[in-house]
């Protein structure tokens, strides 16, 4: 123990040991290449002609970028229709999940009631349930309700994937807002609903954005429920459309890559714009509570 180190105010900050800059640089480059190379290759493949795609050895850059694959995907396939279906289903289920989660989280965050711990655990279990174990009865249930191959069927089923984590994230956001603000408003004569919509919700905007991004991304990407419950092309979503391009023996890789780009762009944009709020909302529940 050295004497100067004791006098914190007079001493300049102690040198922080860390990774050396070569390690940081190499590590960063490695992470960037690993994470992004598949997308670079996807983009390059989507603008190659058939001949360039199927050449040995592979060509890195296409001689002349060709938009044929995009033309095929956008005008000669069902992809635009599936894109529309995906938008309708993702927006619908995100909206429904948001409304249900706002009320449920507010109930969990602000009130004590009998069996609260049980119901909170029940919501969490929903997130952890093996999907494969419930597709059969879900399918039968939807068939009885006449909801197989409808937008509503998928929107409803997607509550299983989006609602639990949404409730979890929003509950911790609501808890972080000082309850005194609400009490003051109630003394001034505001109703519970008024308090929720005029005070709590505006203050938890980052949490709401995190929930919206999470719910939209998850439903946009969801594959297995869509595969089981949407078999008609009028309701099929993009992931199913993409899987359709590749059959066992013949895959049009150029079109698949172009469709992948079309499908990834909205998600990438949404994520890049909101990434700070999204990460904040996601990790808040795990580390702070």
């Amino acid at each position, binding site marked *: 123990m050295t004497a100067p180190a004791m006098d914190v105010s007079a001493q300049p900050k102690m040198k922080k040991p860390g990774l050396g800059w070569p390690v940081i640089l190499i590590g*960063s480059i490695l992470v960037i290449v690993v994470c992004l190379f598949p997308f670079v290759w996807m983009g390059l493949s989507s603008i190659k002609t058939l001949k360039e795609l199927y050449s040995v050895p592979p060509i890195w850059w296409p001689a002349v970028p060709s938009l044929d694959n995009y033309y095929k995907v956008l005008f000669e396939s069902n992809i635009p229709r599936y894109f529309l279906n995906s938008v309708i289903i993702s927006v619908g289920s995100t909206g429904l999940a948001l409304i249900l989660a706002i009320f449920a989280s507010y109930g969990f965050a602000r009130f004590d*009631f009998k069996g609260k711990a049980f119901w909170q655990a029940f919501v969490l279990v929903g997130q952890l349930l093996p999907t494969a174990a419930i597709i059969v009865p879900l399918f039968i249930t939807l068939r009885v309700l006449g909801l197989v191959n409808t937008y509503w069927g998928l929107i409803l089923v997607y509550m299983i994937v989006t609602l639990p984590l949404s409730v979890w994230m929003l509950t911790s956001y609501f808890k972080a807002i000082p309850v005194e603000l609400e009490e003051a408003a109630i003394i001034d004569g505001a109703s519970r609903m008024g308090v929720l919509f005029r005070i709590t919700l505006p203050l938890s905007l980052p949490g709401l954005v995190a929930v919206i991004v999470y719910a939209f991304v998850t439903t946009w990407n969801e594959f297995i429920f869509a595969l089981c419950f949407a078999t008609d092309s009028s309701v099929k979503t993009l992931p199913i459309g993409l899987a359709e391009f590749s059959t066992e023996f013949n895959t049009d890789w150029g079109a698949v890559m172009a469709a992948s780009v079309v499908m990834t762009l909205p998600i990438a944009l949404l994520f890049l714009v909101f990434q700070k709020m999204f990460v904040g909302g996601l990790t808040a529940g795990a580390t702070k509570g």
Partner: protein
Amino acid sequence: MKSQTGLLFALPALIVLFMLIAYPVAYTGLLSVTDAKGNFSGLDNFAAVLKPKVTVQAFINTIYWVFGSIVFQVVLGTLTAILLNQSFFGRGALRAITLIPWVVPGIVAATTWAWMFHTEFGIINYMLTGTGVLQNPIGWLTNKDTVMPVLIAINVWKLFPFVAIMVLAGLQSIPNDLYEAARVDGATFWEEVWYIMLPSVRPVITAVTLLLVIWGLNSITIIYAITRGGPANKTLITPIQIFRSAFESFQFNQAAALSVIFFAVTIVVVFIYIKVLSAQPGEAK
């Protein structure tokens, strides 16, 4: 009076989840002990699904898939988190880039990697043979020894970002005086990693690992999109077996019996997960 209000707020969400979860789970139980006509058949369905060798193989494949994925996801994710926890120029951008594999659709990841692993025209075989690592191109996705490791690698690529971001959040909540105490004692960086960072984020890693087990048991997309369980059932995991027996062979009752067994295993993991979570200090109540 007050006790009613809270429940009222939560009720709509609870009803929806109850309808979509509790009812199907109960119904699966019922289906598993009845035959196609709805008559009670005891444990016949269970016997029918447990008899074929393929069920056992699927169980083993599932364990291989889940544990093979998790080891690399946790190790690579934690290393990335330690990197991202350093302060350097462009850290925010790097964090965003790291998350991209996790955010993109699983089906896009699956098809893009399948194209890159293509035997004849794939870029990976080209790079490996071009640099002399391999003499001849490998049929990564058709060779029964390489297909599972390749699928695991794709799954690791897809989910290590999630581990990284969660562990990073844990690292950033470590109080500064812990580091300062270590620096007074002259600790090196790797000693800090070993004696401060890893012990501090152990609860996060435990929680994330269990979550990964559950997701691993749930994952169908990557394997289904690339191999559908083939070649020769080498990549057939139980969720895909359930899916195929229900929607390809239309054996709803046998699929249900398999679901019940699978469900029992998963619920044990979920139970441990919740116990661990609630044992964590400072966790949301």
